[in-house]
């Protein structure tokens, strides 16, 4: 055993790491095709292609990206949330293509009000895991929506609230980005939007980074 001279040095206090992980969720997949356009456009396919571009833009901003699905799989809502809930210092972005809305616009949704469960354990109930993160999600949502509105005229200026199933069980700042729409006649219209959507998400996440004090343990309240 090595012998050291002098007083033992105290180990350095671990600094809480900042936000560096984005869990990216291309919605649907497998037998769940999501929204379908008359021209054969399928939400489950398009979001996977959007995710590739969003991933690139996020990695360029220094984020590590975890995707909930790579191919034509369809993890459950809970499985997708679990990937984010197991991380420390992650945000969650779920990607969707709508049936409705003005083509060429994009909206960000955050979960609407969820009552905080009063418990003494400090643990977050799974079925309302998003509750303690609502204000952070709104901040992230507004930052991303602001960037989307600059690129896609007619998009809202701020994030909207909706009761999105995927967001409810996610214990992290979480947003849903929905692009309009699968009803475009030419799929190229959606393809042209992908770089702008990717850049807006990456810039919004980067702007959000300093404001998020990451919890010490995964699943902890912020």
């Amino acid at each position, binding site marked *: 055993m090595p012998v050291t001279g002098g007083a033992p040095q105290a180990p350095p206090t671990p600094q809480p790491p900042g936000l560096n992980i984005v869990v990216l969720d291309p919605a649907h997949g497998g037998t769940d095709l999501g*929204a379908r356009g008359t021209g054969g456009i399928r939400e489950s396919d398009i979001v996977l292609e959007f995710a590739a571009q969003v991933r690139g833009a996020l990695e360029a901003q220094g984020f590590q990206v975890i995707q909930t699905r790579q191919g034509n799989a369809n993890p459950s809502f809970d499985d997708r949330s679990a990937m984010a809930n197991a991380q420390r210092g992650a945000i969650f972005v779920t990607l*969707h293509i709508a049936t409705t*809305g*003005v083509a060429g616009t994009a*909206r960000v949704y955050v979960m609407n009000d969820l009552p905080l469960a009063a418990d003494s354990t400090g643990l977050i109930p799974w*079925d309302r895991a998003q509750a303690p993160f609502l204000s952070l999600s709104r901040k992230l949502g507004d930052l991303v929506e602001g960037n989307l509105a600059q690129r896609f005229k007619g998009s809202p200026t701020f994030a909207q609230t*909706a*009761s999105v*199933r995927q967001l409810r069980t996610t214990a992290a700042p979480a947003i849903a980005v929905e692009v309009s729409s699968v009803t475009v006649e030419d799929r190229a219209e959606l393809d042209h939007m992908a770089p702008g959507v990717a850049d807006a998400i990456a810039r919004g996440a980067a702007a959000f980074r300093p404001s998020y004090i990451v919890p010490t343990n995964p699943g902890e309240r912020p």
Partner: protein
Amino acid sequence: MTPRWRLWFLVALVIAVAIAAIYLPILRRNIRQAAKLQQRSEEQARRELTQPTVINPGDPRVKAKLFWASGAADGTLAPVTVELPLSSDPVLRSKQVLNTLLAGPVDTEARTLPPDAALLAFYLLPDGTAISDFSEALATSTPSGIESEQMAADSLTKTLEANVPQIRRLKILIHGQEVETLAGHLDLSQPFIVSSNPAPMPRASAPAQVPEQQKLTPVAAPVKLTAPPNQP
């Protein structure tokens, strides 16, 4: 054929072509209208079969507020005033307004719920929780997407809030079953908040009695729909 007959023949042919050119678009339009009428009557028949309640001509006519799409691009809803005979019993009243909401507005573009969806059952618990059971079509025919599904749910909750003050929250079932989402996005596993400050339940909680001969009165009883007001 002599040149004269040939001329007559050509003239007749030109006239026939001209008549056909005028008549064909009219014929096509008539066929489309007939198809639409048939589709509507099928919808109506289905609605009458599945909604054997609840208009009671004896109920006082009141101005009900129903929420359909405003027509704006931002996916908002707008109230439309409809004069309806509404029961004072909260369950019957809820059925009346929801069935009228499902029947849809004059402007079909403003519809928020699928035309083939039907309300199968409606219950109201003493704590103000309403449980509405819709046919499968609500899930299969609502356009998939966060915006469209939230609009569908909002039109139900806002309409109930405006017309049935006793309701605190609304739980939506599809064909008697609890489902995870409406059409892939909107969370149906939790109830929706209708009112944070509901009115107390009426003392007589038993459903209002409807005369036997009126129980099968379809909802198709004429209702007068007014145009949406110019407000967001």
